[in-house]
């Protein structure tokens, strides 16, 4: 049984009560429906597994335990720990063929059953990328599920760039994720353990650092002195065994993490009969019909002590045995591992690409890249076409792990290989890929050249889906530099060709580009086209295109301030991208959510979203710039500190791109900050460069906003571009109409700022009231000063933030959901009432809990009652 965690000694539990108590209370929370994820840290050998096993033993009568561990391989099997767990669960087994999002969903579903489930994932410092994604998703989603997830890891091996560090950084921001650590033993505990030995307990504690594994090995080795290292202690202990037993240890050591009995028989030959001796001596343990070392430190010590010839020999035997029909279900990643270690080039070329392809399929792109690199080390044995394919796939894996320069280098090699054999189709496609990859680091010119070259090469061979994709890419490139006319033309060509070829996904991709170009032109056809494409893509089950369409729609809503679009799609878009592991799309939409909340006057929510987006360590600059600007503006508008450095970082990211859509939000924010501080002379400085660029590219919308701030600073420009909407009204001196339009749009702060230019007392008083309501201290002070200059006295000081109502800034939709929650409706029933999917309701409930800082629905309703959010509410009825 995969989850049979018994059979391991749990004798040493000295000084572990605090950790056990932590687990007990986490399990209690889980039982009440407040899922918990515990990250258990500790150095190697400190007893993380021991304490988790002891806890699981203690509660096994009332909880179900699913147990899996990560492999100590340079390139571990994708989703390795869940392979163990899946032996118990058919649904999870099926999910393992898809990827992290499906695995997380299957685990949460399995965990919904009684009794309460404990999922243990050991040694996540070795986890493959896909497994880390599962943890990330679990951390995000288990808040309302009755499950306890425990992940153990060695904190002494995490350098600054370790992928786990990034994941932990994200995880700990969720209230239901907690960190615990297992400390080394104190001198007293070591003395207790060494009680019956002749060793000096103080010396033993000093030399072992109180590491329980080290202490146990020393005591078991029975030597008179304390060995200098763990390795020495392990070897001393092994030296007491018979020759046969030591040979058997060698065989187990080369096949991590554990070796099946049939394989061990093949590896150990005549020495197999010594297995009992090793088990009795406690060096090895049996689990799930396989044999492993009691601890990875012991395995490492034995493996490192192997003579090279012996090691090679054992790996060759393992390879041959796993390669035989007898190998059965054995995993291609293991074959690739032994092929490399056996220095068998043919086997590496056979298994490494296969292992890479499987890793890619499961979303373990870091591991895929490593497998491709291993195969390409022997690329001289391959044909140019085969090499080109491996380089192209490697480039893709590197792109997905954000190693952009390395990805560009790999795809460049692929282009060269294809060119050498005159394969225009694949060369053209590789050029298109390079055009996508090189955009990130900002090689704009090279991208454009590649985009054109791809199209002309692909047009010289029979029409292909590759060509249609190249058209879509050219459209994308033109939209990025705001050449919407050309972007539309190329998108239409892509749509037509995709349709002619019957390639639905390509057609949708090109349609997305066309919709994007239309949105940038403020053409109302854009959002409609995108929504239609979304329905088509959803119906066809196209996961990534659906994610991209949500991204474009929510971008459209943010850009044009049409919040009817984002009300329809933002929650669903975030949910879809989260569910399917489309992390970059999710991150960008999180940044959009920050900006949208800011513009709608929901500043707490804006800051929360912005901080969440900024915690994700990705190299993508667009979401970072948007989140930084939103955070800086929340602070500036409240009069809070720490604004300037945030905007400086945003500008440093935006300026080198030369792109208006990245630069203008930063420039506008700097102008606003200068205005709030009364430094009008800085406004020209902040906006000059971007205004020139926007005028040169004839982009009326950024121009109108830039001119508005400049006018507020007394700068009057003549650029020959007519402003639109509220900007036109304000430019014409009609503050009241401008404010009304802003209110109509749904931007209360902008409405109040528009009134600052009014001459009459009444609109100024309204502006002051609204700014005080928003907690906009600096702008309120400016208006108050203007009123005082007009001779108005006895201005009321506004209510202070802590006493404001709906401080939580629930959206209208969230208030509706909250009202139904208060009526005791379950999510499924709420979904029915509101005509939305249960998924979307889940998302709303999660947002409500977050905003109200509540751990449960009950707490949320209580808090809402306290805040008066449930007053004046109609009895529940269909809305």
């Amino acid at each position: 049984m995969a989850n049979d965690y018994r059979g391991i000694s749990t004798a040493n539990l000295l000084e572990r009560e605090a950790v056990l108590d932590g687990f007990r209370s986490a399990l209690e929370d889980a039982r009440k429906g407040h899922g918990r994820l515990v990250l258990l840290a500790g150095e190697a050998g400190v007893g993380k597994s021991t304490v988790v096993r002891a806890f699981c033993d203690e509660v096994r009568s009332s909880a179900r335990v699913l147990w899996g561990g990560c492999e100590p391989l340079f390139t571990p099997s994708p989703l390795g720990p869940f392979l163990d767990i899946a032996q118990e669960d058919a649904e999870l087994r099926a999910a393992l063929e898809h990827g992290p999002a499906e695995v997380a969903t299957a685990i949460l579903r399995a965990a919904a059953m009684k009794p309460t489930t404990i999922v243990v994932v050991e040694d996540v410092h070795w986890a493959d990328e896909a497994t880390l994604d599962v943890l990330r998703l679990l951390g995000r989603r288990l808040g309302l599920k009755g499950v306890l997830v425990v992940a153990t890891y060695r904190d002494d091996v995490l350098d600054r760039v370790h992928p786990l560090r990034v994941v932990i950084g994200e995880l700990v921001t969720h209230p239901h994720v907690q960190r615990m650590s297992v400390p080394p033993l104190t001198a007293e505990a070591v003395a207790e353990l060494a009680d019956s030995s002749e060793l000096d307990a103080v010396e033993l504690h000093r030399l072992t650092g109180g590491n329980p594994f080290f202490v146990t090995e020393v005591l078991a080795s029975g030597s008179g002195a304390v060995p200098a290292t763990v390795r020495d202690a392990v070897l001393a202990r092994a030296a007491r065994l018979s020759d046969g037993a030591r040979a058997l240890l060698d065989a187990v050591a080369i096949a991590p993490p554990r070796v099946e009995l049939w394989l061990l028989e093949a590896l150990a030959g005549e020495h197999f009969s010594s297995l009992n001796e090793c088990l009795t001596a406690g060096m090895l343990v049996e689990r799930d019909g396989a044999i492993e070392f009691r601890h990875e430190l012991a395995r490492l010590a034995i493996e490192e002590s192997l003579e090279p010839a012996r090691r090679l020999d054992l790996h060759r035997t393992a390879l041959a045995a796993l390669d035989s029909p007898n190998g059965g279900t054995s995993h291609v990643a293991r074959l690739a591992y032994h092929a490399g270690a056996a220095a068998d080039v043919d086997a590496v070329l056979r298994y490494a690409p296969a292992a890479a392809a499987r890793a890619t399929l499961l979303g373990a792109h870091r591991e895929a890249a490593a497998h491709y690199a291993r195969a390409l080390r022997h690329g001289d044995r391959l044909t140019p076409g085969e090499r080109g394919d491996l380089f192209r796939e490697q480039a893709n894996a590197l792109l997905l792990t954000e190693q952009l320069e390395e990805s560009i280098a790999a795809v460049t090699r692929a282009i060269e290989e294809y060119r050498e054999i005159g394969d225009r189709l694949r060369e053209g496609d590789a050029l298109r890929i390079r055009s996508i990859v090189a955009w990130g680091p900002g090689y704009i010119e090279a991208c454009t050249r590649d985009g054109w070259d791809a199209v002309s090469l692909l047009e010289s061979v029979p029409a292909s889906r590759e060509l249609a994709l190249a058209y879509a890419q050219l459209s994308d490139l033109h939209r990025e530099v705001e050449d919407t006319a050309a972007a539309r033309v190329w998108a239409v060509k892509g749509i037509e060709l995709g349709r002619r070829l019957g390639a639905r996904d390509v057609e949708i991709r090109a349609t997305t580009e066309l919709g994007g170009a239309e949105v940038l032109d403020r053409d109302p056809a854009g959002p409609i086209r995108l929504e239609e494409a979304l329905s088509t893509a959803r119906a066809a089950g196209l996961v990534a295109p659906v994610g991209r369409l949500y991204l474009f729609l929510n971008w459209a809503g943010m850009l044009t301030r049409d919040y009817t679009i984002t009300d329809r799609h933002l929650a669903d878009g975030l949910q879809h991208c989260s569910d399917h592991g489309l992390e970059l799309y999710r991150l960008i939409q999180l940044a959009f959510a920050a900006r949208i909340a800011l513009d709608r006057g929901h500043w707490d929510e804006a800051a929360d979203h912005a901080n969440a987006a900024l915690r994700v360590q990705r190299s993508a600059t667009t979401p970072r710039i948007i989140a930084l600007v939103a955070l800086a503006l929340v602070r500036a508008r409240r009069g809070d500190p720490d604004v300037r450095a945030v905007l400086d970082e945003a500008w440093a990211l935006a300026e080198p791109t030369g792109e208006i859509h990245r630069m203008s939000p930063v420039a506008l924010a700097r102008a606003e900050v200068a205005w709030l501080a009364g430094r009008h002379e800085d406004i020209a400085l902040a906006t000059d460069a971007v205004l020139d660029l926007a005028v040169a590219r004839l982009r009326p919308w950024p121009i109108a906003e830039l001119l508005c701030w400049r006018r507020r600073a007394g700068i009057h420009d003549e650029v020959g571009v007519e402003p639109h909407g509220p900007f036109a009204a304000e430019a014409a001196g009609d503050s009241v109409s401008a404010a009304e339009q802003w209110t109509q749009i749904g931007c209360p702060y902008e409405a109040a700022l528009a009134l600052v230019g009014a001459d009459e007392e009444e609109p100024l008083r309204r502006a002051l009231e609204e700014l005080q309501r928003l907690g906009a201290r600096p702008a309120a002070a400016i208006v108050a000063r203007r009123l005082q200059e007009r001779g108005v006295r006895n201005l009321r000081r506004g209510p202070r933030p802590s006493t404001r109502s709906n401080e939580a800034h629930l959206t209208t939709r969230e208030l509706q959901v909250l009202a139904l929650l208060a009526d005791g409706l379950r999510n499924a029933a709420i979904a029915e009432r509101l005509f939305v999917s249960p998924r979307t309701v889940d998302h709303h409930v999660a947002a409500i809990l977050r905003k109200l800082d509540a751990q449960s629905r009950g707490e949320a309703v209580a808090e809402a009652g306290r805040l008066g959010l449930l007053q004046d509410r109609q009895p529940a009825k269909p809305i």
Partner: protein
Amino acid sequence: MQTYVIMRRGGWRTPDEVRAATERSAEEADRTPEDIRWIRSYVLAETNGELGTVDIYEASSPEAIRKHAYRAGLPIDEIVAVADTVVVLADPQPLPI
């Protein structure tokens, strides 16, 4: 962590009210020690007879201070970042909280 001064001018009528607020404040700060640490406070005798406070906190961001204030039910008038500290003499003997 960065050091901030938080102005909470007025709003409390009696020392007992201030004491109750400080208890809530300490309790809330203890819940998120990675985000906020309360260093010390000066209770202000406002000219209108009310009591206010000037608080010194360490926090991960201004938002952390606002969140803490909201949870503890404390008002905020202004948050100012501390650029440097000059200590000349120790504070006068405070009242125990």
